[in-house]
């Protein structure tokens, strides 16, 4: 497995761990039986806004740990350049992730249109964001393996 592919796997695991732990934390800390809070827009606004810095910090920490372990195990530096192939693969994966998130957005609006609670919309948005992030990494891995 090449360096870029390993980085993608690390990103994948980091995304799953970060979002998984954050959702678990928010659920235990804020919801925990009080399901009325799910219909509070302020709760969702805060949760979404806090997710951004938390995921950025978590990704930075995980990548630093990965870089240290990688250096110790393989004695290789992580490549800092992105060449034309990397950019093409990045664009392809972004296209797929945008489609997935757009489908999630349409699904969330459809849920509202069919009379679902606002919490359903936010849960669909969160789930589609999570799926688009995961599938984006899987698509990258696929193109690195299969070729562009």
């Amino acid at each position, binding site marked *: 497995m*090449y*360096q*870029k592919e390993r980085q993608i796997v690390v990103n994948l695991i980091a995304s799953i761990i970060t979002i998984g732990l954050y959702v678990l934390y928010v659920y235990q800390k804020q919801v925990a039986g009080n399901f009325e809070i799910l219909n509070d827009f302020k709760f969702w606004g805060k949760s979404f806004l806090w997710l951004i810095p938390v995921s950025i910090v978590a990704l930075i920490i995980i990548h630093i740990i990965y870089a240290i372990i990688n250096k110790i195990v393989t004695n290789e530096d992580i*490549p800092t*350049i992105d*060449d*034309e*192939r*990397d950019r093409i693969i990045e664009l392809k994966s972004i296209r797929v992730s945008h489609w997935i998130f757009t489908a999630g957005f349409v699904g969330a609006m459809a849920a509202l249109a069919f009379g679902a609670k606002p919490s359903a919309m936010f849960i669909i948005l969160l789930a589609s964001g999570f799926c688009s992030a995961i599938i984006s990494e899987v698509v990258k891995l696929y193109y*690195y393996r*299969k*070729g*562009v």
Partner: protein
Amino acid sequence: MAKCLINNSIRTLRFMANEMTQQELADRTGVTRQTIVAIENGKYSPTLELAFRISYVFDKPLNEVFSFQYDEDPVLNKKVEDKRRKM
């Protein structure tokens, strides 16, 4: 439009250039070694700019480093081959 297959002789040219390593070629063309591996294995068709850079490193014309063939259109493929023979 027929699908175009681009072949290359980078592996041979590297061998003839004092066993140039993939990393060395990558450094000289400004890409990662993984991209050179992908090109050699036919998993990635480089842009025209990178193709020229690679041919510049080996000091060869572009058509000696890269060649192409149409795999889905034998008639067109034959025409291209005939034209090439006449040249």
